[in-house]
């Protein structure tokens, strides 16, 4: 993006803190904008005007009393519909949870953003129980991609990605079990972070597969991404140099099925760092298989009581996957968890030689809604189940991964995964900032933004 983005979280917070506008005015403008432009996109499942205005007034009151309102002062944000919001049911994208008891308190991630001055304005669409890469929900509808409304936004945090890409909010929260932040970030042209496994509190986020579940943010710039990550982590990430990084380009599994444009973009990233050494992630295909199996088994087990009593209330696309997972043999689940230990050791050994690994985020641009398939090994396969081809092996290991958008103004977005050793999110931010500064990566405004007239 050229020049400062006046709608960025950093710019909004600076304006609110300096008194150039009020948090209440920002919240009112955001709520009106969402009400006007979201319906054809269907990113939001619920607006929270009373809460948003109350939270915004609290920020303004702090400023009036000379109290620091925090680094996200007055910044509107929205959350995937699986985060607990005090006083309302957490649907997790499921009709069968519409009548669930209202949450007693906010999820920890929401509390962290509120404490930093952020203002929650609404909840966002997702695949039912986060099981899918399409955000095509039988109960809450399909979320469309702001870059082309005839294409999917990706999933399962598709509402979280579409809302930020369309400029309805500068920041959002999603969750990533197998790629549910990184896939929609890639398809909607955003920055999306899956932090180190276990690095952020997931209390109050509806679970899916305990081995892999992570909450995480979406943003339109590296600066905003770092701002929200620091608020979630509760501390400022270290400033580290991007010069001299030893970069590895993941080969084999991570090149098969990837588009030529995407591979050319990865070459540009490698060139920026003085070239990248080709390297294999050991047994990447098996790592993906293990992630797929562990997710199926843990998800199936989690839902077994409801599958026994009211399976037909589920979205059929989710239901049959969960039923199959519930019946996976224990021997297979345990084998996958034993393989996970092996895969972790093999992957961590790579960081003796490299600081940063680079891989595609998705095989290509967002699939068309009508086809709902992608080509893998020359065959059309379900996009809902297979868009995580390149994200799932990394899920298994638990490494921090920042999905970044290749700079492609006027074209459909393509995403790249930047990968570091556990706990090295600071390196990811440093590398991404350098690439953004060089114009190699960056958010591009959607060309087709005539959503309200469609």
């Amino acid at each position: 993006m050229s020049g400062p983005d006046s709608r960025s979280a950093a710019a909004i917070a600076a304006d609110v803190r300096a008194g150039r506008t009020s948090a209440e005015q920002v919240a009112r403008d955001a709520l009106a904008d969402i009400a006007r432009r979201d319906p054809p996109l269907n990113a939001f499942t619920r607006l929270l005007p009373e809460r948003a205005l109350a939270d915004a007034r609290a920020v303004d009151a702090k400023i009036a009393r000379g109290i620091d309102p925090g680094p996200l002062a007055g910044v509107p944000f929205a959350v995937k519909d699986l985060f607990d919001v005090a006083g309302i049911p957490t649907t997790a994208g499921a009709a069968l949870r519409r009548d669930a008891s209202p949450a007693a308190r906010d999820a920890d991630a929401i509390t962290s953003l509120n404490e930093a001055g952020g203002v929650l304005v609404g909840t966002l669409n997702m695949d039912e129980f986060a099981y899918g890469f399409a955000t095509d929900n039988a109960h809450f509808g399909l979320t469309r991609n702001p870059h082309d409304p005839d294409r999917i936004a990706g999933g399962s945090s598709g509402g979280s990605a579409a809302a930020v890409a369309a400029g309805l909010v500068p920041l959002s929260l999603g969750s990533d079990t197998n790629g549910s932040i990184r896939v929609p970030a890639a398809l909607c042209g955003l920055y999306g972070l899956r932090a180190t496994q276990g690095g952020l509190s997931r209390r109050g986020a509806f679970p899916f597969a305990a081995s892999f579940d992570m909450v995480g943010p979406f943003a339109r710039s590296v600066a905003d991404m770092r701002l929200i990550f620091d608020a979630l982590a509760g501390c400022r990430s270290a400033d580290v140099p991007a010069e001299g990084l030893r970069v590895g380009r993941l080969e084999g599994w991570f090149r098969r099925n990837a588009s030529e444009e995407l591979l050319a973009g990865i070459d540009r990233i490698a060139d920026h760092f003085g070239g990248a050494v080709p390297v294999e992630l050991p047994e990447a295909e098996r790592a993906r298989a293990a992630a797929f199996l562990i997710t199926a088994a843990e998800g199936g087990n989690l839902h077994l009581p409801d599958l026994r009593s009211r399976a037909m209330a589920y979205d059929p696309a989710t239901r049959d996957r969960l039923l199959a997972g519930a019946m996976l043999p224990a021997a297979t689940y345990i084998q996958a968890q034993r393989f996970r230990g092996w895969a972790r050791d093999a992957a961590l050994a790579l960081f003796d030689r490299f600081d940063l690994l680079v891989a595609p985020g998705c095989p290509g641009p967002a699939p068309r809604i009508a086809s709902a398939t992608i080509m893998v090994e020359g065959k059309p396969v379900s996009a809902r189940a297979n868009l995580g081809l390149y994200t799932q092996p990394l899920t298994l290991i638990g490494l921090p991964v920042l999905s970044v958008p290749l700079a492609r103004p006027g074209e459909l977005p393509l995403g790249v995964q930047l990968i570091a050793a556990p706990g090295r999110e600071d390196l990811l931010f440093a590398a991404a900032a350098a690439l953004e500064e060089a114009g190699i990566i960056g958010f591009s405004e959607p060309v087709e933004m005539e959503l309200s007239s469609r």
Partner: protein
Amino acid sequence: MPEHSTIRDHILAQAAALDLPLDEACLPGIDSNMALLGAFADLLHAFPLPPEREPAPEYRP
């Protein structure tokens, strides 16, 4: 590859062991998902692991 009726019998037996009633409408979707999981499982079981390799999750009392 087992006969289709054998796979269906296997699914129904597994479900019965879990006290999991299955609606007829779910069976084709379960079939295809089980085939997918089965292919992934074959891939994984073909990889030899030493006996001392423990499952990844750590339990801390």
